[in-house]
């Protein structure tokens, strides 16, 4: 459901910076269903890739073979991401806080002697800063949804309104957080993440239980549509190969 919801968040014709795993599956699902003109950009330097199977890494040869253009890594970040030429960036998170800040660096302890050492920043800090908008895809648990992240690897809204603007960040930041339970969006005034929709069969109490802060629930809480037969068929075909 998380994958289907993420795919639906991509509008046709958008330019999408894609990471491997769920974002790549979602983007390829969207391209095969409602968004045939979605432009897939991978940080390995492939622009406009149209893979006929799911790539197994961000640098899979199928991406280079099917891309409109293949460029070096400095160019992807400097020419394409930095000036705001990418509409949507997908990010994952080990920890996400109520203002959409993301930690993929260390959990617990101090930086030099961490409880858990995570993979690190990758492309995320600049994706979070420069994509027109960011979609975060993350499983919702008390451990991942925390009041305040242990380390800010990628900036969301800091601790509230006005901070992105003050820092000169050009993108709008995390506009959508898709979890295994539902969807959160930032409150337009406070920038705090608010639960705005639930996937089928999930109740608000579960979402609250699995959030490490006092989760606000929108008055007009929406309910996600279950995956269609078409979405499921395409998704199964994609992941079976």
């Amino acid at each position: 459901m998380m994958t289907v919801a993420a795919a639906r968040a991509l509008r046709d014709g958008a330019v999408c910076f894609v990471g491997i795993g769920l974002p790549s599956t979602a983007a390829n699902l969207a391209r095969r269903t409602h968004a045939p003109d979605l432009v897939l950009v991978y940080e390995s330097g492939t622009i406009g890739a149209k893979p006929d199977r799911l790539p197994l890494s961000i640098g899979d040869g199928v991406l280079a073979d099917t891309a409109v253009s293949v460029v070096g890594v400095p160019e992807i970040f400097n020419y394409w991401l930095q000036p705001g030429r990418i509409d949507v960036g997908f990010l994952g998170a080990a920890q996400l806080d109520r203002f959409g800040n993301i930690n993929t660096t260390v959990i617990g302890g101090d930086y030099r002697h961490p409880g858990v050492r995570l993979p690190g920043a990758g492309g995320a800090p600049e994706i979070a800063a420069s994509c027109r908008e960011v979609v975060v895809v993350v499983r919702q648990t008390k451990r991942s949804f925390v009041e305040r992240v242990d380390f800010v690897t990628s900036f969301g809204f800091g601790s509230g309104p006005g901070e992105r603007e003050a820092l000169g960040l050009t993108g709008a930041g995390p506009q959508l957080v898709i979890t295994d339970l539902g969807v959160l969006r930032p409150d337009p005034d406070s920038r705090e993440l608010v639960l705005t929709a639930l996937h089928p069969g999930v109740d608000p109490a579960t979402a609250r239980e699995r959030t490490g802060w006092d989760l606000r629930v929108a008055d007009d809480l929406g309910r996600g549509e279950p995956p269609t037969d078409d979405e499921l068929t395409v998704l199964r075909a994609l992941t079976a190969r």
Partner: protein
Amino acid sequence: MATIAPLAEAVAHVVHDGDTVAFEGFTHLIPFAAGHEVIRQGRRDLTLVRMTPDVLYDQLIGAGCARKLVFSWGGNPGVGSLHRFRDAVRNGWPRPLELEEHSHAGMANRYVAAASGLPFAVLRGYTGTDLPAQTANIAPVTCPFTGEVLTAVAALRLDAAVVHAQRADRHGNVQLWGITGVQKEAVLAATRSLVTVEEVVDELEPRPGAVVLPSWVVDYVAEAPGGAHPSYAHDYSVRDNDFYVAWDEISRDRDRFAQWLESVA
């Protein structure tokens, strides 16, 4: 003019104890054969540099070659964690590993600055994150024209760069294509360089989009067919995804890793 030499000889000339060295490759064309030769030659105290230290760096770290890692994303792509990397960070095994962490954009720009002969590069990045506080190589800089505050990253100069490519000619001109990552920048950022290639040919056929490193910017070329395995060389081999999955098991346990290490030596 590049010297074409056997792998062991080329590695001995290019990679020395205590060097700051990058074995670059962005999923594609990762110089595994050269890295394994470094393990065999028992190099120590290396500062290993790479945007995406994956399985090759897990192997070098586990073998005790590294003192420090300069990187932007350390994981086994699509599989999970690097267990030798984690063991070194958490437990100092087989020796402590100092970390310097950047973003991909930061690393790419650091290479570009060094390749360009400049002391630093400028980017619109890192802002608002906790990363700049952890290293002296990231600092705010004010634009002299607009007054805007941006981020400067220090040039990443290398003692040695090692990359893998598809082909070289007998003069040592190197051609690589497909996903080319930051290999060109790494070679141009280094004092000494080694390119391992799938094959040495009499003449390079022009290829649209290929990167060519002319002989005079490369020090050594060594023929190493399959030298990117388990990564791949576009038009020569495919990625051995099963090995990346298998590595998770091999690297999880120190004894199991020690057995693997013997197979390399």
